[in-house]
């Protein structure tokens, strides 16, 4: 954990607005993490909205898909600080097509608890969530973050010579780990695939197994075969 983030965590622990969420700072259940993925309307944290959130607990080597968290949000219900104060007004307007984020957040926060979060380009997902979490409980998510692309980078390119082309794309990770691409592209399937990446990469690291890299230069083929 970076120094800056550690300091921030300490600050948040001291300044948390809603005391009911102090559990975010308690030690979480041993050997449990949560894989999380959000689908958003775009990549601009300031302007775009979350459409769906999916989270899956991982206990040891088991991905608890049966205890998943899944929420579809109302895409037009932009969550502004003002709106939270008057949320009782919106409450009546909840429609079938999606829920309001302030209704979803307490469930999500209780679901993840103090567990570390696992994701692919997780900082973006958390930044999106923090946009709503900060005004809601007065702090940003303090959970430890585990970035699967970093785990992958370390296993594959950790000992690579300088100048090696690095590919950290989601597809490259799936392919190297032999994880099947799940049929439908949605937040839950992305979270599940991320969870599978995590358990596989963690095990490779524990066993000291590296992911082989293709040769950087084509090998010389005598005879032009």
């Amino acid at each position, binding site marked *: 954990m970076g120094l800056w983030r550690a300091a921030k965590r300490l600050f948040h622990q001291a300044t948390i607005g809603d005391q009911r969420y102090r559990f975010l700072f308690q030690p979480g259940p041993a050997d449990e993490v949560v894989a999380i993925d959000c689908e958003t309307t775009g990549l601009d944290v300031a302007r775009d909205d979350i459409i769906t959130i999916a989270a899956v607990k991982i206990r040891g080597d088991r991905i608890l898909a*049966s205890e998943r968290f899944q929420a579809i949000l109302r895409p037009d219900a932009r969550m502004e600080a003002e709106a939270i104060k008057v949320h009782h007004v919106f409450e009546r307007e909840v429609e079938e097509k999606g829920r309001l984020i302030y209704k979803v957040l307490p469930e999500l926060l209780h679901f993840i608890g103090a567990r570390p979060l696992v994701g692919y380009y997780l900082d973006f997902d958390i930044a999106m969530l923090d946009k709503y979490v900060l005004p809601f409980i007065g702090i940003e998510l303090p959970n430890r973050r585990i970035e699967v692309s970093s785990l992958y980078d370390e296993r594959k390119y950790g000992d690579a010579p300088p100048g090696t082309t690095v590919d950290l794309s989601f597809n490259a990770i799936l392919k190297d780990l032999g994880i099947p691409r*799940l049929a439908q592209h949605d937040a*839950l399937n992305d979270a599940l695939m991320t969870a*599978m990446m995590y358990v596989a990469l963690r095990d490779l690291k524990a066993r000291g197994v590296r992911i082989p890299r293709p040769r950087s230069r084509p090998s010389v083929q005598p005879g032009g075969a």
Partner: protein
Amino acid sequence: MTQAFDASTPPFDRLDARQVETLRAALDIGYYRPGETLIAQNAQSESLFIVLKGTVEERDRDELIALLGPGDAFDSRAIVQGESGHAFVARDECLCWLAPKVVILDLIKRSPRFASFFYLDISRKLDALEREAEDQRVGSLMRARLAEVFTHPAQFIDAGESIEAAGRQMQDCNSNTLFVRDTGRVGVITGMNLAKGVILRRLPLETPVRELAHFDVVRLRPDDFVFEALLLMTKHNKRRVALHDGERYVGIVEDIDLLSFIAGATQIVAGRIDRATSLDELGAAAAEINAQVRVLRRQGLKVQVIAEIVSDLNRRLLARLFELVAPASIREAGCLIVMGSEGRGEQTIRTDQDNGLILSRPVDEADLTQFRAAFSGALEQFGFPPCPGRVMVSNPFWSRPLADFVEDFRRWLTLPDEDTQLNIAIFIDAEAVAGDAALLEQAKKALIGGMRGEQATLARFAKAVDAFETPIGLFNQLITAEGKGDALDLKRGGIFPIVHGARALALEKGVTETGTTARLAKLGRLGMLRPEFVSELVDAFQFLMTLRLDSQLAQAAGGSGALVRPAELSTMERDLLRDAFRVVKQFREIVRRHFNLGMF
């Protein structure tokens, strides 16, 4: 909810949408590192595993039983019986869906079709598979009951009534067949019988029908299958079968009724063979036999029934050819035999001709030479490929006097090599097709007599069960190379060990049956094999034969047809294939122990 779990592969495709939803909601995913045990041997399991990624080894102690890949589900035994028979170990990094046992047990209770996957014995799984296939098949009429076929109601006449009275009754009831009541017996008389009696034998119209009726009535029950009627008609060369409900005759089914009910025409082919008066006519009939195999299979007939029908047609063909081309000297002195798979009645698609001629005495050499060439040449023209090992009438080694055969047997037994072992094997399977069957009986008696009680000789003979390993190694390639990999050799890895093991045990016990299924059944009755094991083995054998036939039909253009690509099989079939190979392995072990093959 998540669509991540693919429910379109068996057995999950049998669940309805709500059941799939229940299952999906309950699934977890487990990760296993190489060497990690998913289910220990004889242990409980809280989940049904469905491989998502990687390869799982199924092990019986040190022995590798099978390799499971993506889509494969295990272990039904642990779910249903509460204890796994084998151990399941990750071969590489594996991900598996974990379906809780309680959820699976509940689905088993609710969906009988889903439950069939979890049956523990092969035969119930096979039946389920047959039912599945049948659902998709349009022309499964052969498996219909006779009661569903149009039948003529039973009409009776007393045996003392006249030909004229019979004719009138037929006219009145618009039927061509009457049952004839005689004291203590019932027969059948047809319009053709009446006509022949009057016209050809010039019998007076007052003659009692007793004289013309035949009392060797072929009968079946209304709830018997259509194919059984077809089989009986082909075998006995009858045009009609009587229906008897256990108490009395209730009707008549004519061949034309059956043929209008089904598309196949084996009975017609049989008739054509019998009526052929030239090689050309016979050749035309022969060409239809192969086509029948496809029709029969499409209609969903079990491979054993198809093999019986085809063997019957082939033997009929050979017998007719013998009559047409053999000179009188050979017809009188000879016994035409078929050997190998043809003798066992297990050939469906023609692979080669294995036939021979046993003579009671030396015949005119010119006659013999001419017959050898004519017989084998005609068969080749009819589309029976020549035997690569030249086990054919055209080879003087396989067409000679009994005394010469018997003399050779002694050499086969005292100087055993690969060829003589093969000769013994195919000769033991021989059946007489035409001529004096007693000659074959005597020959077999001499051969078997020379081997019975000779443990070393028998063991040397049995040893061939070990010639080919059960092809589990190939499974792996298939799983990793998904479809591009090698194919399984069903014949070498599965069918041959069963056939040969049964043959060796039958030989030792003096069992005279030639069919593998019949041999196994007899060995079961003799107490050599446990009856439950016999039925498992027979089921495994039938399943392997079915796969082989289907693959032969699929690649009708050529190829050995013994090869099957597991990647092209359904999950259910692959599961059965594993079961079948497991049974083959057990049987091989039994044979090995029985003949003490470890000593060799």
